């Protein structure tokens, strides 16, 4: 059998068409229709419990929508998952306690059936260089999250889903990671979706911010972030202005 030509790691567009989801009587997501452009990073912001993780989990194929469809490129999520094209950093780092950091990061490549050559570089990059041989129990919460981020990047996915990846990371490390990590997926053309509680972080990391309403989640604002790479810092004028825009829409719906 002829081998298919190696896929460009470049991402696919994420298309959500009238997607809804409830858990029993709790409506979590109310009819969302949106297309997230291929190769771009989109941030989701919204109040706690509004349904952000649920949206991410549906894109990942972990939950089936009650109605509506989600396509990644032209494929349903599970098909992309099967070919190793998906990766996600969960809100809780979900490392395997019996594996050390290196083996946990390598697991991402292993499960996606991709080469594991980037493992050590990534561990270095997320600042865990000295801890590659440590078990998760020996790490702080922030360190575990960084290991989980490295795991999600190691398979060079087409679609990258980040659910509050820096939630437990200290402010200093966080701003360093905010600067150093995005090029890793942007330069490969990965389509990324990021959930964050920090509006400023959403602006710094993304090309587009979607503001969600209180539960059940609807899109209440859609803000394009057109910033040159050198403008993407936490204390630049441009970022502060855009963050102000996002804030104003967040406050509107209260």
């Amino acid at each position: 059998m002829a081998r298919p030509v190696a896929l460009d790691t470049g991402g696919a567009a994420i298309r959500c068409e009238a997607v809804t989801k409830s858990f029993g009587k709790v409506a979590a997501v109310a009819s969302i229709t949106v297309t997230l452009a291929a190769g771009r990073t989109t941030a989701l912001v919204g109040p706690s419990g509004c349904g952000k993780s649920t949206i991410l989990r549906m894109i990942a194929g972990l939950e089936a929508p009650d109605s509506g469809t989600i396509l990644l490129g032209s494929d349903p999520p599970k098909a992309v998952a099967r070919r190793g094209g998906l990766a996600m950093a969960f809100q809780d780092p979900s490392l395997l306690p019996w594996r050390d950091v290196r083996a946990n990061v390598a697991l991402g490549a292993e499960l996606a059936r991709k080469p594991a050559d980037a493992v050590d570089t990534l561990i270095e990059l997320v600042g865990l260089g000295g801890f590659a041989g440590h078990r998760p129990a020996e790490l702080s919460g922030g360190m575990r999250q960084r290991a989980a981020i490295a795991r999600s990047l190691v398979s060079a996915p087409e679609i990258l889903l980040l659910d509050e990846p820096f939630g437990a990371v200290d402010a200093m490390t966080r701003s360093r990671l905010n600067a150093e990590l995005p090029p890793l997926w942007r330069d490969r053309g990965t389509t990324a979706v990021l959930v964050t509680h920090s509006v400023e972080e959403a602006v710094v990391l993304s090309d587009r911010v979607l503001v969600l309403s209180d539960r059940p989640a609807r899109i209440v604002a859609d803000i394009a972030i057109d910033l040159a790479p050198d403008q993407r810092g936490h204390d630049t004028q441009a970022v502060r202005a855009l963050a102000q825009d996002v804030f104003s829409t967040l406050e509107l719906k209260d």
Partner: protein
Amino acid sequence: MVASRSVLWLAVALIAWEALDRALHDSVLVAGPIAILGHLMDNAGLLARATAETARNAVLGFLWGNLAAAALAALVVVVPRLERVVSALALLLFSLPLIATGPILRVLFGPGNGPQVTLAALAVYYTTFLALLVGLRAVSQSWTDLMAIYGRGRWSTLLRIRARASLPYLVIGLQIAAPAAFLGAMIGEFTGAERGLGVLTLRAMRGLETEATWALAVLSAGTAMAAYGAIGWLGGRALGYVPVILLSASRPRASRSFAARLIEAAGIALLVVALWQVAMDAFDLNRFFAKRPGDVLTFLATPANRQTLLAALGETIAFTIPGYVAGLVMGAGLAALLVLSPPLERATMPIAVALRAVPIIATAPLLVLAFGRGFTGTMVIVAVMIFFPTLVACLQGLRQAPGQIVDLFGLYSASRWHLLRSVRIPAMLPAFFASARMAVPAALLAVTTAEWLATGRGIGVLMAMTASTSDYNMLWSCVAALGLVAAAFFAAVALVERAVLARYAPEQLA
């Protein structure tokens, strides 16, 4: 420090034992440590060969039984819909006393070590199955999500995540399995083997050789406990820790109606009968000794046969229930008392855990020596068999009384009794009933073993007799009857459990 204190206690116990022997000079009851040691040394060659033989059969059965357990547990975890049926069948098979299956296996296998190995396997598979069921599910959803993100399914999750997560639980299962395998192998030897500790034990008992009986009891108990300890030690070394879990058949869910449970029970009964028939036919087993369900029904249609069976069964049940209740009540009672004194509790727990590992087969001959071949002896054997597991389980249950509630009671300086009554005992109830459930097969095994070894009455003896006179219709009827008794026994325990929990710990029923 702790080790030196244990050594001290051991020395004190040995001296007291020796003194008792001297005081009861010439009695047929007790042999002292020095006499036992003498016997062990004088017969070192014979005993070593017998131990090796029994250990070999036990190890083979241990391997097969645990392999079967792992396969069953994996199946149930990957196809959860099968759980209820698989669990019920596994429990039923486990509840058939080894003494009952032994003679059947002997005619199926003929001479050799087939029955010993099979009985050892039957003695271990169920507890390992339970332990693995807990272990394979001790997996957080985020790990299964992680597997799903990479498109990996149930089998991949089973192999990469669940199998590894279950290892500490497997260690617990294997630990309990080690003495059980030894017990199975020895019972297999009772059913007509030529070599092994079981054969020697039987011979020593029948010849009223006190020293030999004691020496064999010490040897088999010691070997079984050493295996228990070695597995725990190795597991602890390899994994860093071993969790505390209670192994028990799951409680029937309360939410289901009585009718639904009845239908399910009937379905399982039909399935058992069908499996029985199909297995006999599939292997084309000789109708002379491999009886089918139909044969048993025809046989029991004759009133005389029925009466013989029911009379023996009645005796057995009358002997079982007092021992069962006594073992449970004493185990739970001692646990409740011990928890009032934490230092005493800490000292007792390891001893109870260790004694739990002593196979009943090792101590039964001694208890017969001490308490006679009648009602008392049998009752004590049943009670002892149940006592230690219950004590351990209840102590574990009592420790789980949520710390905060206990603190709160401390704050209001409630009395210890009040605390015991209103917090600790409700906390202990689930553990108590878990042991009550697991005590059902244990009691049936103990009572049939005692009957077979010593008392000369009841269904244990009926089976031994029918096996030697080739009355295979009666033998299979006895086994079927014991299966029904076990099922009824379980149902009764479940009924009591639901009533008690509804009254004293309703939150447990939710």
